[in-house]
């Protein structure tokens, strides 16, 4: 019973983490649609997308590790 509860909790946390990238990326468009400031040599709009090309996969990798029990929650 406790094992099943832990499994469900892992699934739930993994789901929340997996949802972060789609929710933020879809909803942030109007806020990030600007060239200033330039960061890492790129206009902000481009930097924002490159940033998510890195942190989006990080969230998903952590979600996977939680899902399989490698990271305890």
């Amino acid at each position, binding site marked *: 019973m406790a094992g099943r509860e832990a499994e469900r909790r892992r699934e739930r946390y*993994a789901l929340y983490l*997996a949802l972060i990238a789609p929710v933020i*990326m*879809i909803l942030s*468009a109007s806020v990030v649609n600007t060239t200033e400031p330039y960061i890492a040599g790129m206009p902000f*709009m*481009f930097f924002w997308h490159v940033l998510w090309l890195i942190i989006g996969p990080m969230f*998903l990798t952590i979600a*996977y590790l939680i899902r399989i029990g490698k990271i305890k929650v």
Partner: protein
Amino acid sequence: MEIAPGTLALGIIFGWIIISTVIAILAGILKKFSLEEWFVASRGLSFVVIYFALAAEIYSGFTFLGLAGWAYKFGAPVLYALAYFVTAYSTGFMLTPYYNRIARKLGLVTQPDYFVARYESRLLGVLVAIIGVVFFIPYIQLQIGATGIIIELASYGAIERTTAMIIAFILVAIFIFIGGIRGVAWTNVLQGILMWCIAIALLSVPFITFGGLEQMFKRLEVVSPQHLTLPGAAGVHGIPWYMSTLLLCTLGFWMFPHLVMRAYAAKDERAIMRSCAWMSWYSILGFPIVIIGLFAVLMYPELVNPDWAVMWTARDLFPVWAVGLVGAGGAAAAISTGAGLIQASAGIIARNIIQRGIWPKATDIQTAWIARFLVFLITIVALLLQLYAPALLVALLLMSYSGMVQFFPGVVLGLKTKWVTKPGVTAGLIAGVLVVILTTFVWKNPLQIHSGIWGLMVNFIVTVLASKMTKPPSEATVKAFIEEVAVRT
């Protein structure tokens, strides 16, 4: 003796294609032929193979040519593609373990099989198969066209586009015929490795030419500032367009039949989940290609076709052998995706339109043989359409993502609710596709919201209302999906 640049580049490209073909044939020939083997590699693809297989199918001719072409033509709106490379894997991470679990338990081999099993309706399976294949053909055509452009440019005009397309796709048809999905997967492994090398080489271009990214962007800000924010250079891709297109791709991505079949082919849920998590890192690959598109705005403002940006840059700045490798990478990207699409289309027609529609007595092995021969038929049809009716295909291509996303309510509600019914899903699907046609050709993207999202909204409403008024499938089926399969216990 001096070798002409076109001959050397062409030798590298076709050398690569021939090596891929041999590996694909070997991968398939060593396994016993059966329906499950040809369709889903006996559900035995390991993490590494499924990872590269999916990645190579996803990063296609569009990634290589179209992404740079979009950046060149429109500028910042292309960022929706980089964004969905990330968001779509989140959807995959959530959905694909269910796909794999259900397929394993119920013996599903194609995407329409899911609808047949969940809604107890072969007819719905036929409808899903027809919609899927109709929207698939333009994607195959796109890959064929991309291959033609790449080979023509990389060979410095030594080989004509039509000849290049015909030779490349005959080889593809042969290796799918023999290798099935396993052959497709192994050629994709090769392509994946090559694509990474090319992406790194392409990223160096603005640093070498301008001294860095910032210098390039600052110059672009002077020459064409509209390239740097929405609504982009054409002025029509505003915030609502961006948000709705990103949502469309996020939800629609894992509705494509060939990707569903790859999820079925994974050896277990963990392998496919892990692939989604790791594949999202692969998305970084799109960035150098977008940069090349913007670079080309500055360097080649009079480019005849925006899709030439990558190959034109390579020809201008790289040595001939490197142009050959870039061409090989681009051709491999288009070919591997095309191969996956052709294999999935052949499988769907054989399984859901023939075996489960017009010839129910066909055995599994007969169905697998039919699928094999359909590979040639589909390849020829796509080639002929590409040569003689490209306008028709452009129209279908405009709707393909919008069409595929209409499967979403039937898939997700089928996994999570007990009340959704066959008439509900059928009515929703038909209503959704009709709205997509209207909002693509009559009232184009009203309020700048993508036609697929309009279709999806109507589809959901119709599916829910019609389901509430009709009888759900049998208790046993609902139990199999909701309680035993869909909910992990």
